[in-house]
């Protein structure tokens, strides 16, 4: 190196240490430009270094700023030198991180947007009305359904209080929102809006911010008006069903499809003896205890075969019985029907049953009655024929008696025969009454006489003694003598049977005047004859005493149970009453009340037979009509004997012809005696009508072997003037004919 070169190098080194060092002084003209250039470069280099330091400082500042943004501390100067800083490229790292953050934000925003769209879709498609409120009850948002439910217009807008739009100013008790705010939990409630016409279910759920504070609430409204109305209708229907079931006479039990009881009404409770609360859930078989005719317990498979039966009434045999929890047995009729679900499958069964014990007994009684009826018809026919025969016998005997001397032995024998015939007549009458009942053929009677006859007749040969007390002034009464006798005989027969070892029977007959205050039921005020029959038998238990007048009720092994029933029926038909008083061990007393005849009827038929009949005194013409020749003959004989002129006819047609001929010939009949029943021909009932067409003044007497023929009981209504009941003797016919003629004269 040259000297100048060394000087320059030294200068440059010194200059680096001291930038103000002036240029070296050199004489070389050649060196001067070089030194000037070095000086220029030196100064430029200094500037550049200064700028580089500023750039690095800037970078460090920005790096620190970025580091702060991402949440960490700034770089410490000693941590990284400039070169490491540049090579590490923190700005690049952080910006790349920001890019990733932005990408994530964008993706999150996309998701959020999608989620918001989803929420919007859900809000509109959800069935209920959705209302979002802030924590001060300000409306944040709502869906279309909410608008429709609340009847809002879209102008309602948000940012207003729900009080203005839902509660309409009222602050309701039990506000769901308040409750939700208080508990901090999802809350359910109800709301009645639309002026009380609409019902809503409301669910309020809280929305919390990241700190867990409730900032909003979502209220979901469901319109349950139809449900509420349906529930009310169901409740109403249930109540109606309850009252219907409670008021019907049948027992009703409903079961589920497993045959277990789900419902039963009060009648079912009474018939089964089970309380509904105890029976519910039990198998039907446990509660409806059915026994077959062999008294074996049977379990009805209501849900199985029974429902397949075409006739559900035939679910049980007619003789099956139901046994209640208390052991009471009854006959019952039952029907069952399936309860079908909407899908037509069997959901259960309904069983309806009723107590037919009474009907069953009635049926049995009807069957008995029917048997009795046929016996009655037979008895009626026999009695009719019997009466005809008796008429012949009694007529002939009474005629024969009149033809003999009163003191003669023959007269006496004939009298006894007559009495026996009369007894036979009474028996026939009883036969008829027993068999057919029939309206009483009443006549004014002295009950004292009748009582005495019946007592004598009934007690003959028995160990029972009778004390009969009849009031002297006993009023007469209108009774059917045969039927009355039958009542007394039945009662006495019962008393005799009640005292097999003998005893005392007290019978009283007395007058009683009853006013409205009397304690005798079913009796109107007026005058009555009371007959009291008191025995010393064992009496009747209180259990039986109400049943003794029922047909077919008997405590006797061989009894028919008809005796007292007939008594009751007969007394009833006489407008009277029959009652009983008894106490076990103290005997039995029957009371009979019969209406007394009026004062004008005081002249009772105390002697029903004409005491004196004068042969040959009768004057006039009598036409006899009877199909039975024996009756006709004896009647003609008796009437002739009385002095009348008699013409016989065998039926209505012939009688009418004969009557017309007699009228034409100027010798009309004064009295006509007609048999009511002419088999195969015109009977008296029809003939009397036709006869009155011919001659309205014709006097016709009815005669019949059917002593209980209703025509006899109410003869005047049919156009007859009087009655000659078969069998009759001379006295009977004489009295009837004389009476008819008497009325003729009075007319």
């Amino acid at each position, binding site marked *: 190196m040259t000297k100048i070169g060394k000087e320059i190098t030294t200068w440059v080194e010194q200059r680096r240490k001291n930038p103000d060092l002036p240029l070296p002084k050199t004489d070389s003209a050649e060196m001067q430009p070089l030194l000037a250039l070095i000086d220029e470069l030196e100064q430029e280099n200094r500037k550049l270094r200064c700028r580089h330091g500023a750039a690095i400082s800037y970078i460090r500042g920005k790096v620190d700023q970025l580091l702060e943004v991402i949440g*960490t501390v700034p770089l410490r100067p000693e941590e990284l030198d400039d070169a490491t800083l540049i090579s590490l490229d923190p700005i690049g790292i952080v910006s790349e991180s920001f890019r990733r953050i932005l990408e994530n934000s964008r993706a999150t925003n996309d998701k959020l947007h999608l989620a918001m769209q989803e929420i919007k879709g859900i809000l509109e498609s959800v069935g209920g009305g959705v209302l979002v409120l802030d924590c001060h009850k300000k409306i944040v948002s709502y869906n279309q359904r909410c608008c429709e439910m609340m009847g809002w217009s879209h102008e309602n807008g948000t940012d207003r209080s729900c009080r203005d739009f839902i509660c309409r100013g009222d602050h309701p008790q039990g506000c769901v929102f308040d409750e939700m705010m208080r508990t901090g939990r999802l809350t359910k409630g109800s709301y009645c809006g639309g002026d009380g016409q609409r019902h809503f279910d409301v669910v309020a759920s809280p929305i919390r911010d990241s700190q867990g504070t409730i900032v909003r609430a979502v209220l979901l409204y469901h319109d349950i008006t139809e449900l509420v109305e349906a529930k009310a209708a169901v409740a109403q229907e249930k109540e109606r069903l309850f009252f219907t079931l409670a008021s019907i006479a049948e027992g009703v039990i409903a079961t589920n499809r497993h045959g277990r009881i789900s419902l039963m009404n009060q009648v079912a409770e009474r018939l089964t003896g089970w309380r509904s609360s105890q029976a519910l859930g039990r198998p039907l078989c446990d509660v409806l205890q059915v026994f077959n005719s062999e008294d074996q317990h049977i379990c009805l498979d209501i849900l199985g075969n029974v429902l397949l039966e075409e006739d559900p009434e035939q679910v049980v045999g007619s003789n099956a019985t139901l046994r209640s929890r208390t052991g009471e047995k009854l006959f019952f009729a039952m029907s069952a029907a399936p309860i079908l679900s909407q899908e037509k499958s069997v959901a259960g069964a309904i069983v309806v049953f009723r107590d037919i014990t009474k009907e069953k007994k009635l049926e049995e009684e009807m069957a008995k009655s029917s048997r009795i009826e046929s016996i009655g018809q037979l008895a009626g026919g026999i009695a009719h024929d019997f009466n005809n025969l008796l008429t012949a016998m009694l007529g002939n005997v009474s005629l024969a008696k009149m033809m003999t001397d009163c003191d003669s032995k023959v007269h006496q024998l004939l009298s006894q025969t007559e009495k026996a015939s009369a007894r036979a007549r009474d028996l026939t009458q009883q036969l008829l009454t027993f068999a057919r009942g029939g309206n009483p053929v009443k006549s004014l009677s002295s009950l004292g006489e009748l009582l005495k006859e019946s007592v004598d007749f009934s007690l003959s040969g028995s160990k029972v003694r009778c004390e009969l007390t009849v009031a002297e002034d006993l009023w007469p009464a209108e009774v059917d003598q045969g039927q009355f006798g039958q009542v007394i005989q039945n009662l006495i027969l019962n008393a005799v049977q009640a005292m097999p070892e003998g005893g005392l029977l007290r019978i009283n007959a007395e007058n009683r005047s009853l006013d409205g205050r009397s304690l005798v039921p079913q009796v109107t005020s007026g005058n009555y004859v009371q007959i009291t029959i008191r025995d010393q038998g064992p009496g009747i238990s209180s259990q039986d005493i109400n049943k003794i007048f029922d047909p077919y009720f008997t405590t006797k092994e061989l009894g028919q149970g008809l005796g007292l029933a007939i008594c009751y029926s007969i007394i009833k038909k006489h407008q009277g009453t029959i009652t009983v008083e008894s106490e076990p061990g103290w005997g039995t007393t029957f009371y009979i009340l019969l209406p007394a005849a009026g004062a004008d009827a005081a002249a009772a038929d105390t002697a029903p037979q004409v005491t004196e009949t004068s042969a040959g005194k009768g004057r006039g013409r009598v036409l006899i009509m009877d199909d039975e020749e024996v009756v006709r003959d004896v009647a003609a004989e008796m009437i002739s004997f009385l002095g009348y002129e008699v013409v016989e006819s065998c039926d209505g047609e012939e009688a009418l012809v004969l009557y017309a001929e007699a009228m034409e010939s100027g010798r009309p009949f004064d009295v006509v005696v007609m048999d009511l029943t002419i088999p195969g021909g015109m009977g008296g009932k029809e003939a009397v009508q036709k006869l009155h067409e011919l001659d309205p003044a014709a006097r016709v007497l009815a005669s019949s072997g059917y002593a209980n023929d209703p025509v006899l009981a109410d003869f005047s209504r049919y156009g007859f003037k009087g009655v000659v009941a078969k069998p009759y003797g001379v006295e009977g016919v004489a009295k009837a004919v004389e009476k008819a003629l008497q009325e003729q004269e009075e007319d």
Partner: protein
Amino acid sequence: MKKRMDKKQKNIEIDMRGQVCPSTMLVALEAINKYGDELHGGMEQLCILTDNREATNTIPDIAVNMGYAVQVDRQDSFYRITLSCAE
């Protein structure tokens, strides 16, 4: 946060024990940037081991903002911050 770990997933571990912020953060971010796509794809998961307590807040915060699932487990003398694909 739940860590996803299936059998095919590759585990990348960066041990930064002894380092402090902000270098811990910068190194972690560099690694996240490097493996970011694989992490998002679920092919890899990144485990950062650090004994710098502050980093257990800062790194998870920024990683969550990037959309990763983060789990911090305390070990005996350091923390394991695991980044994986968010569900």
